[in-house]
């Protein structure tokens, strides 16, 4: 921390085309190193914690680091699996007498659990051999991938939402609330509007985007006009959105007339996203929209005048203002775009195959997971897509792990959290130390400057 830490210059050229993108995303390791340029000493900048954190995240979060974090998280997860199983734990009481018992049973438990995680998320050899000898259909082979992609789609949207705001210098904690309002408007459009197929779906998806846009606009305009901090406002709006949803579901005309519990009428079939691989597999067109959105955000950030403004405002609002960019307008636009993305993520939750009606938990945690996804994906569009894929796979595999190995689904949440902690913690620690050093330096320079 005393020596000038390398700081990413982050010229941050996003890949121009989709094809390049996949290549670059995999080549993160090399890129991060080349992008690292020595920090200019005494440049008088005033780094915020968020800025430093981001810089360090970019510097630290290479592909290898991500992989190592994954491995570390799984090791910690293995310990948790062992500790939570009473039978295996019992073998540890006589570990000095017969260590093989403890080791064997632990190994069996953990390896089976992780094997199920893999089988549920990527590929199940048994289903494959079953398909070869005709005991089950091809759907069973593709089922894990289908599940993974189903969970991935909404996370891509919320991840992009958080990442886009981050690039513009705003911390959008409100993806959850924006997704919630998005899910409400999408569902309302889905079961209240009698529209022809095709148009109905389009309207429902756009309604979701609109809902998110509204919920993003509010903190955006408050930030721009009143200087209200977006973190606080988005958190508050999350609560409002959640309880509004809870209230709305049980209202007349919204609640399913055949049910007494809190569930709304189902979305019409004409407003549901079409399934891609037949009715037996849950993967739906949302994943295609997600890829499209990723491309659009990448284009917006790097190939558009708006993205130029956004990045300039995010990196140095003073210089942006001096160059004639309206910082307040940009803040509002950033939050609206972030809201649109989160709202689209919300639409996925009710127009896709995970649910077709509003319930209090219909959005799950996609907004908060989106923050993790954005950080894991180094707040770059294609990185976010890959991070969402990883989280989707963990979610899908976790379901199988729960039903086959009896390991609680919450372990997956723990794993996700651990991965992010392992990646983010070094960056965070470094950021805090650097900030402290910077602060001390600033104190001294401000003392030294004088008139």
């Amino acid at each position: 921390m005393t020596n000038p830490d390398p700081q990413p210059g982050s010229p941050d050229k996003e890949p121009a085309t989709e094809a390049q993108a996949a290549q670059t995303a995999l080549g993160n390791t090399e890129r991060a190193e080349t992008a690292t340029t020595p920090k200019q000493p005494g440049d008088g900048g005033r780094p915020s914690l968020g800025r430093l954190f981001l810089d360090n995240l970019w510097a630290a979060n290479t592909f290898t680091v991500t992989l190592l974090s994954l491995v570390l998280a799984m090791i910690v997860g293995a310990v948790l699996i062992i500790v939570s199983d009473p039978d295996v734990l019992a073998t540890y009481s006589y570990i000095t007498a017969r260590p093989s018992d403890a080791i064997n049973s632990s190994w069996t438990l953990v390896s089976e659990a992780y094997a199920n995680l893999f089988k549920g998320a990527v590929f199940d050899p048994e289903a494959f051999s079953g398909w070869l000898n005709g005991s089950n259909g091809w759907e069973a082979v593709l089922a894990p991938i289908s599940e993974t992609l189903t969970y991935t789609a909404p996370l891509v949207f919320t991840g992009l939402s958080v990442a886009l705001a981050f690039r513009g210098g705003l911390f959008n904690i409100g993806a959850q609330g924006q997704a919630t309002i998005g899910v409400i408007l999408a569902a309302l459009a889905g079961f209240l509007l009698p529209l022809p197929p095709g148009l109905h779906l389009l309207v429902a998806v756009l309604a979701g985007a609109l809902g998110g846009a509204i919920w993003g606009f509010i903190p955006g305009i408050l930030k721009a006009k009143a200087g209200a901090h977006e973190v606080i406002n988005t958190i508050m709006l999350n609560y409002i959105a959640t309880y509004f949803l809870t209230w709305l579901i049980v209202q007349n005309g919204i609640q399913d007339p055949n049910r007494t519990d809190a569930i709304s009428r189902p979305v019409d079939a004409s407003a549901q996203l079409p399934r891609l691989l037949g009715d037996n597999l849950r993967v739906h067109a949302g994943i295609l929209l997600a890829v499209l959105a990723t491309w659009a955000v990448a284009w917006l950030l790097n190939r558009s005048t708006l993205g130029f403004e956004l990045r300039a405002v995010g990196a140095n609002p003073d210089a942006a203002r001096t160059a004639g960019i309206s910082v307040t307008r940009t803040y509002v636009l950033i939050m609206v775009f972030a809201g649109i993305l989160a709202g689209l993520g919300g639409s996925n939750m009710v127009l896709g195959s995970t649910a077709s009606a509003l319930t209090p938990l219909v959005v799950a945690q996609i907004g908060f997971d989106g923050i993790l996804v954005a950080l894991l994906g180094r707040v770059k569009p294609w990185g976010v897509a890959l991070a969402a894929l990883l989280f989707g796979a963990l979610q899908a595999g976790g379901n199988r792990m729960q039903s086959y190995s009896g390991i609680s689904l919450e372990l997956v949440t723990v794993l996700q959290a651990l991965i992010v902690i392992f990646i983010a913690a070094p960056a965070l620690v470094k950021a805090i130390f650097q900030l402290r050093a910077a602060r001390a330096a600033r104190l001294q320079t401000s003392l030294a400057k004088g008139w």
Partner: protein
Amino acid sequence: MEPGEIHALLGENGAGKSTLMNVLYGLYQPDEGEILVDGRPLKLKGPSDAIAAGIGMVHQHFMLVPVFTVAENIMLGAEQVRGGIAGLLDRRRARREVAEVSERYNLRVDPDAVIEDLPVGIQQRVEIVKALTRDVDLLILDEPTAVLTPQETEELLAVMRSLKAAGKSIVFITHKLGEVKAIADRITVIRRGRTVGTASPEASRDELAALMVGRSVRLTVDKTPAKPGRPVLEVAGLVVDDDRQVRAVDGVDLTVHAGEVLGVAGVQGNGQTELIEAIMGLRPLLAGTVTLDGQPVHGWSTKKVLRAGVGYVPEDRSVDGLVKEFSVAENLVLDIYDQPPFGAGLALKPDEIARSAKERIEQFDVRTSSAEAPVGTLSGGNQQKVIVARELSRPLKLFIAAQPTRGVDVGSIEFIHSRVVRERDIGTAVMVVSSELDEVIGLADRIAVMYRGRIIGVVGPDTPREEIGLLMAGITPDATGASGTPGGAPAPDGAAPAPEVPGSEDKA
């Protein structure tokens, strides 16, 4: 330093006054040389060592906790505790100490007042009391009058006299001649990190001013006489506040003609920054008009002003001029990214941006590894060239450059100056604001001197530098006799207590 002496340290911005004092206070470690106290060399590892050696310092920016009371602030860092380890803060004792010190040196402060409710002058007094409760013999006051009104300055000078009478020594850092002459026993002038002279307070203002602003190296700019044309920029009756809502520009009238360079000289913080920001639409104006080619432009957005043909080099390039994380190419289009050929509708044209960047880098001799290198990796001079290149690569009516060569190497200075003159010669109206007097004299065809938010005089470039130096210190030739009032900055207009150095704390 002698006991009971007031020693003034005089120098321009960035001359090294504050740095020297920070070394004395232990905040910085000297690279070479040593400090002698009572004839013994002193090793300071930090401010606590300095306090132990009897050195106290009142910083330019007060080190007070705004929500604490005076007594709490004074005991901060030396908390007195009653009743053992888990004890209570001994507020009563702190209050008593404050009262004692106040009494002894005639420094009235209310120990129970909350800092944020107090005016700046009293806050400063609290700082002084804080230093005195630590039993210091040598008190360093770093630009103490910078934030004070003339009345508060008067009171401070009185306090300093009573401290002197009590046998305390004071180092008084300033760049204001009037105060120095009023109170100092001895004056040391520092320029560019060196002592350039020691003077007694009897020395004339002219001598002091010459010592302060004089330069051993004089840069000359080759140029032909100006051929001024129509007035391009006209500013009338402009009034602007700074960030602290203190009047910074107080009725400025200016005209810049096509084909001439108007130099604005003045000590940093006399409203130059705010004047330009108001012209550029970055700061709201409270009164007055700004017209460009006869068209009123006040109230326009910055973008609109830039589009109207105004080029602007901001005074702080790392804060306002460049996005350091962006590449050189991106910074070269920072204010024209959405104009053809670089942007069409919503789309950027990266190829055009790269092509034009190559040209500019060539034309303006920007030394960079590539157009894609982050601009933060460039040297200061080359960063500045990027800004100049950006602003001069479109047709301009008016070119405003603030501190265009601050922190820039000599080679780049010459290059930038020649570009400024070339811009003038093609008929652009040019306004150069600089606190480097040589730069202004070298470049300008007319020199306007700003002092306390006003244009105190407009002179030709052949005016002797001493005369300009006096103007910068607020002394107009006809008022020289009258302004010798002891104590405090002479305020020829008396009525307008414009602050000496508004809003320039971190920009200097």
